[in-house]
């Protein structure tokens, strides 16, 4: 009896704690002092990240994209989010159930970043910008993109991109309207237009590259891109590593909170789903992000499997060698690859090993994933071969088959039968593993959902679509492997 009371008491205590926890307290947030003690969401690497971390009296939670940040506010994961004033269009805000609590006092200069060694390009840009300012072009761009309360012109002005010269590669982290964003193959937003105009001015084509905020500075440093943009603010720290152009605008920051008054829309679930499909896939041909990403994911996965399997066969024979040092080299390689996080390997390959070597990011990803896959595939091959008893080889030899005939006609089919499920598993986990290639600016399936989410701020649907596609891909891979080996390995 006593025990039961005790348990009941403990349980209610837990319940009380659970209820009181989280950002449930109602507080009026009207100025910077009010957020003291709250959870604040920022985008990783943005200058708010550093400023707020320096404050010390708030808990800073970092998110990779604006969409994640917005969703965190809506879901109550954080009390307040800090971002550029222009990042969420006003009507969009309402739709998402967000509102601006207040605007920050300070403003930040936004500019284009250049490598320190590219003084010429920098001064060319500054010259161009001075001219454009004088001729009123900059003002008109501001009017179109920044002073319009989210009412962008329709249709948008598309710039030709067929200048004859050597292309300038511009990396953008944000992919956010009205700074820089993509519809199908074209880029829009104030920064993109400035870049297009700069390209016209120089007579060189502009190529945009969408990168994760966390990796954009690294890419600029290694020469993977020539100019970085995406609402990059000029800070003391950044000035030590990069050169910055004349700022084109001073942005204020906004403090966003959940809009509890936003009326819950009365639309049915099905209608919501249909709207979601429309918003995330149909409008602006956004499904094309998905198909492009899908193709990239398939390409990287298949090529990595191919490369990794070839290397894996070598590794398998090495680990079966009678010579000790060959065997040890193989097991050392395996141990190294198994213990190395795939993302770390990918970043090292991209920035260090092939940094600035002029090899495409996709090829680097294939090499990195191939090297990693070799270790697991080699292990699978070895296990499969070892699972065939030695007696099978002896029986084959004793019948008069040569070593090769015995291996290919007797041992291999049995090994394949045993190893195929394991191998399929490894291939599928490789497929899933490729979802991190977005870190090195590859537009794969996962990155496609990120891009769509950064435009629509819908967390669920793009992720759902991508999940289904990964599932189907995994299923197709398993089916293909089964088919291939059924056809090739029988009497």
């Amino acid at each position, binding site marked *: 009896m006593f025990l039961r009371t005790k348990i009941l008491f403990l349980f209610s205590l837990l319940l009380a704690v659970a209820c009181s926890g989280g950002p449930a307290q109602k507080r009026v947030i009207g100025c910077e002092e009010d957020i003291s003690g709250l959870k604040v969401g920022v985008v990783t690497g943005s200058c708010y990240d550093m400023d707020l971390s320096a404050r010390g009296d708030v808990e800073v939670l970092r998110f990779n994209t604006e969409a994640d940040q917005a969703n965190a506010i809506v879901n109550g994961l954080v009390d307040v989010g800090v971002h550029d004033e222009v990042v969420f269009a006003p009507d969009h805000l309402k739709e998402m159930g967000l509102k601006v609590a207040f605007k920050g006092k300070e403003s930040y200069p936004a500019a284009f970043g250049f490598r320190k060694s590219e003084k010429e390009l920098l001064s060319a840009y500054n010259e161009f910008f001075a001219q454009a300012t004088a001729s009123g072009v900059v003002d008109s761009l501001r009017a179109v993109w920044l002073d319009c309360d989210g009412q962008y012109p329709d249709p948008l002005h598309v710039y030709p991109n067929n200048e004859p010269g050597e292309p300038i590669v511009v990396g953008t982290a944000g992919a956010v309207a009205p700074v820089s964003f993509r519809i199908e193959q074209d880029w829009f937003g104030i920064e993109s237009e400035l870049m297009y105009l700069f390209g016209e001015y120089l007579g060189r084509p502009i190529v945009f590259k969408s990168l994760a905020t966390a990796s954009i500075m690294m890419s600029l440093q290694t020469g993977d891109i020539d100019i970085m943009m995406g609402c990059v603010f000029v800070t003391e720290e950044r000035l030590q590593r990069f050169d910055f152009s004349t700022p084109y605008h001073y942005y204020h920051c906004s403090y966003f909170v959940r809009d509890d008054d936003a009326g819950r829309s009365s639309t049915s679930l099905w209608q919501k789903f249909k709207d979601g499909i429309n918003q995330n896939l149909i409008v602006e041909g956004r499904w094309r992000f998905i198909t492009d990403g899908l193709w990239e994911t398939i390409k990287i996965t298949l090529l990595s499997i191919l490369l990794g399997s070839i290397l894996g066969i070598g590794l398998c024979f090495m680990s079966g060698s009678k010579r000790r040092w060959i065997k040890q080299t193989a097991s050392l390689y395996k141990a190294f690859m198994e213990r190395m996080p795939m993302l770390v390997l990918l970043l090292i390959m991209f920035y260090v090993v092939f940094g600035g070597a002029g090899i495409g990011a996709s090829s680097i990803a294939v090499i990195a994933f191939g090297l990693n896959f070799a270790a697991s595939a080699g292990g699978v091959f070895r296990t499969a071969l070892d699972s065939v008893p030695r007696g099978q080889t002896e029986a084959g030899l*004793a*019948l008069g088959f040569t070593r090769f005939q015995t291996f290919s006609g007797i041992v291999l089919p049995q090994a394949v039968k045993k190893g195929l499920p394991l191998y399929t598993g490894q291939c599928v986990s490789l497929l899933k593993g490729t979802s991190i290639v977005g870190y090195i600016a590859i537009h794969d399936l996962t990155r496609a959902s990120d891009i769509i989410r950064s435009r629509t701020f819908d967390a669920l649907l793009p992720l759902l679509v991508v999940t289904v596609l990964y599932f189907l891909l995994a299923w197709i891979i398993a089916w293909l492997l089964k088919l291939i080996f059924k056809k090739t390995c029988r009497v």
Partner: protein
Amino acid sequence: MNISVRHISKVYSNPDGSSLRVLKDVNCEISQGEVISIIGPSGTGKSTFLRMLNGLETPSGGEILVDGENILSKGYSLSRLRKRMGMVFQSFNLFGDMTVLENVIFAPCRLLKMDVETAKAEGMALLRKVGMAEKASVFPSTLSGGQKQRVAIARCLAMKPEAVLFDEPTSALDPTMVGEVLSVIRQLARDTGMTMIIVTHEMEFAREVSTRVFFMNEGLIYEDGTPEQIFKNPVHSATKAFVQRIQKLKFDITSPDFDFYGMQSEMSQFCIKYNVPEKRDVLTHITEEMTQVVLKDFLPLHVVLSYNAQQSETAVAFMMEGRTSSPLAEEGIDDISMMMVRAMSKEIIEESTSRGFRIKVIV
């Protein structure tokens, strides 16, 4: 097919530097049509020797000539030899992913380029011969050990070999299944003129089926002769001990402080192990009287307990080294004890040997 083996040896070297000499110096001539059984204790290199004949094992020295050609020379095609010389393994080694019939036709189809229909017809005929036609379409994993071995024999015969090597074909089988496999081999030996070399522990079978028997011991062919000679009148005592299946237990009593109780318990265990527990009390009693009373003044004393399975004879022998006359005739021998021993035993043999004087008590 004539096989000639000259001065074959095999040394395994361990990673720690030590080495193991499995075969010391093996010589023999085998001619076409002979059926040879190789018998001998475990670990004397019988299987190693057999596996050398088709090149599954490489000798450390010596040469093997098949029809005059050295199979160890460079460039000799072992796979060509193996097509003519089949092998049946202790552990069957049927191909696990093929049905019984596929197992049989796989090699003829691939190696003799036989067309599938002919191969199937011949395969079925062979399976019928070994009584496995009914199971042609099942996978080996569903068969019993004896059935698997019969399929393995059919698979081997499908290549129409001139010679077949049998590597302990019944050692992995339940006692109930040994018979079916042996009768298939027996039939082969009778009906075909094939050369057969069989490593086996089945003495009765070896005696019946073979034209010649090799007794291998300590890495040598110790004795080579007709079944009659090997099983009835072996020249070497090791051969005799082996074919008569004599088991021995030895003690050396060097002082009166010897652990007699320990000896007693070891003897009991010996009797139980060789299934003669009814002899246990008599044996220990006789040994006690002999060692502690009758022969207590004739140390050192070697005591050998022996069991001959073939004649089901149990005996205990007492050997006094260097003596030439019987101690029983001497003064001061305890007559009462000796009488008890005589009463309990079937026969007492007193003999002078090259090592010393021996008293053997058969019970």
